[in-house]
């Protein structure tokens, strides 16, 4: 099996093996606040000025955004050329949920249970979402030695003290109830025989509060909430993307123009409240990174909301997960869950040195990997990629034989598929584009700050995690803020009187682009990444 690693890789593996016993006897030191800051400034991609551009129009004008996002914000709407008659309404609902991931599905369930007529539209299938791919776990302070206040401190500090306090409060205070809700829907959390949750650390947690369902945590949550959406009979319009919001003459959100991804036909949804739950942006490949995200993660919701006048928050803050797969090339960018480190694996450089504590926050650990590689202490793979080792055999030594198959079966399967037995050999990793820390700014109740009746939930929202998100706070965020949006939208729609619908904001935005002299040759939102190769 080991033939799959090159000779030079195997030489380095020998060093990793030689230092293993000594490394296991001591825990790597945690960095000081000053050391972390210095590491981030020098090596984190967010500090690479060349990968950002100034936003020229709209509410965040003058601020920076990743080049690819700025390009989308500077591109024109499909509806400037494709004319759609919005007086012909195809769907008329109380709550329109755009996006069928964890946030959208939780939102729809709560809105339905509160009596609203709710509909989900989603670009691919319901459940084709980053939620499905979340592996490691979900945080909640439900153990006696923990408290929501401690969770608040970890989240706020890990996010560099930039998160909005009212959002962190909701996240941590509603976390235990989110776990209970999921458990009562039938999510199978890892538990001991007496019902105690099996919990571990994540990077930057001060208490072991990571709840998991093996390393299929997100999949287990997503398939359960999806099943519930179907059981409740909530309409789900799949392969249908929202391409613009519709406003009314009172300045309220009033629905969306939809595009059938397969036929190219447009349709119109009118809604008294609209929830954007469109997820992340990994498929924009900021900074040229590969991504752990699903195919449709193209920041669509940010573009829709921004064009209608909703400000973004921390759109310049991106999470690179420290451990993405680099070798073999078929799984380049795939997530290697942080849980691999939670259950004992260290980060080790080419010389066999555990150069950092494996459970620093993600931004710090990602910067550490980049530093090792840039300063010549990285491992080189035959595909030309660089990385460091994640010393997985440690897990079996620490937890006993069989721990890997029991606790991280998805990782084991992914590597065995290519003949790499992670129980015996370390695996090679490098940061992968993982999460959009920022998004559309929301208030404490989940509404945008400027557009009445428009809510945002899940990864598309900004401000919950400040400038760095902790492991397990995103699965938590999609459930807490998804449920919250559903309840709030259902409470709100009853008092909404819609006026006449219009798309004036689309042409106004286009005029603004023109006045600013901004021109791209693209239309936005992107909807799908352009992966097809065409010879001519």
């Amino acid at each position, binding site marked *: 099996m080991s033939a799959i690693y090159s000779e030079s890789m195997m030489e380095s593996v020998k060093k990793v093996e030689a230092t293993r016993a000594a490394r296991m006897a001591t825990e790597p030191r945690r960095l000081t606040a000053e050391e972390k800051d210095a590491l981030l400034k020098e090596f984190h991609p967010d500090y690479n000025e060349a990968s950002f551009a100034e936003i020229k129009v709209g509410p965040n004008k003058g601020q920076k955004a990743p080049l690819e996002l700025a390009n989308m914000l500077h591109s024109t709407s499909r509806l400037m050329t494709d004319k759609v008659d919005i007086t012909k309404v195809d769907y008329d609902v109380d709550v329109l949920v755009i996006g069928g991931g964890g946030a959208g599905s939780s939102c729809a369930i709560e809105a339905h249970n509160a009596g609203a007529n709710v509909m989900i539209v989603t670009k691919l299938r319901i459940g084709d979402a980053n939620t*499905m791919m979340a592996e490691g776990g979900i945080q909640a302070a439900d153990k006696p030695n923990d408290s929501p*206040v401690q969770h608040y401190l970890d989240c706020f500090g890990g996010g560099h003290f930039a998160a909005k306090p009212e959002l962190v*409060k909701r996240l941590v205070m509603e976390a*235990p109830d989110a776990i209970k809700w999921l458990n009562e829907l039938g999510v199978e959390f890892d538990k001991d025989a007496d019902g105690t949750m099996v919990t571990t650390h994540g990077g930057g947690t001060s208490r072991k509060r990571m709840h998991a369902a093996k390393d299929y945590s997100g999949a287990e949550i997503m398939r359960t909430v999806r099943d519930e959406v179907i059981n409740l009979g909530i309409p789900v319009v799949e392969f249908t993307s929202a391409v613009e919001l519709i406003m009314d003459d009172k300045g309220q959100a009033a629905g969306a123009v939809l595009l059938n991804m397969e036929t190219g036909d447009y349709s119109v949804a009118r809604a008294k409240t609209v929830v954007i739950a469109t997820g992340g942006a990994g498929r924009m490949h900021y900074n040229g990174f590969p991504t752990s995200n699903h195919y449709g993660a193209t920041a669509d919701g940010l573009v829709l909301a921004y064009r209608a006048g909703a400000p973004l928050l921390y759109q310049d803050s991106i999470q690179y997960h420290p451990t993405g797969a680099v070798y073999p090339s078929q799984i380049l960018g795939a997530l290697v869950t942080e849980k691999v480190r939670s259950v004992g694996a260290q980060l080790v450089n080419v010389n066999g040195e555990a150069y950092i504590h494996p459970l620093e926050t993600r931004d710090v650990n990602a910067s550490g990997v980049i530093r090792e590689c840039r300063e010549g202490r990285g491992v080189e793979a035959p595909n030309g990629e660089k990385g460091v080792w994640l010393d997985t055999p440690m897990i079996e030594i620490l937890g006993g034989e069989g721990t890997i198959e029991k606790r991280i079966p998805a990782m084991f399967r992914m590597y065995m598929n290519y003949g790499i037995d992670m129980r015996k050999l370390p695996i090679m990793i490098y940061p992968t584009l993982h999460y959009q820390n920022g998004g559309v700014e929301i208030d404490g109740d989940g509404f945008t700050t400027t557009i009445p009746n428009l809510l945002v939930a899940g990864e598309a929202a900004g401000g919950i995690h400040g400038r760095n998100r902790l492991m397990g706070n995103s699965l938590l965020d999609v459930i807490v803020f998804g449920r919250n949006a559903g309840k709030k939208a259902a409470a709100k729609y009853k008092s909404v009187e819609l006026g006449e619908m219009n798309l004036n904001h689309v042409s106004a935005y286009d005029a603004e682009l023109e006045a600013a002299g901004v021109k791209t040759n693209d239309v936005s939102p992107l909807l799908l990444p352009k992966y097809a*190769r065409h010879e001519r």
Partner: protein
Amino acid sequence: MENMVNVYFYGKKYSVPASLTIMTAMEYAGYTLKRGCGCRHGFCGACATIYRIKGQNELKTCLACQKQVEEGMYVASIPFFPTDKRTYDINEIKPTQQIMMELYPEIYSCIGCNACTKACTQSLNVMQYVAYAQRGEFEKCAEESFDCVSCGCCSVRCPAGISHPMVGLLARRLTGKYIAPETEHLKNRVDEINSGAFDELIQQIMQKPIAEMKELYNTREIEK
């Protein structure tokens, strides 16, 4: 020069780099995927695919995002499979053998051909978990089916028309909700929060100046 192989997408021949997966090879060939592409990392089951190697008669199943191309591969992706999910109220049903009989009676028509297990892209013992479901052993069914990504390849091959992923899903929900032991500390914490036990403390920490928060954060004790 890259090592190339010949593959056939829906019968049409393309020369593609041998290092690619079926999914990336289709994109290399010029396809813009809409159906048959989801998470791209083996978790969502969107890219169920059937293939056969030229010169062999055996049909094989895989996830297009997880399978590397091979010379002479005839590939057809399954854009959608009409899996038969029955609906129910999770709060009304009970984890008895009866419920499988009511919702998925066709599992008792299983002829034991094991085609489902052979077709499983996750190498699960599908026929075994269906057998557990037949006997009302939901906990075992849940465990055996846990890694299922609902790609549906099992159902495509099943002569009895069983929707295996849906059977596993029902067993897991029943297990998670009714069979697994209740979590006392979770219930207690939710009660504490609802009774307002943390309201004052959370208000206090929300109002602390950043400098004090930094001090608190940087000196906090980390559980071993």
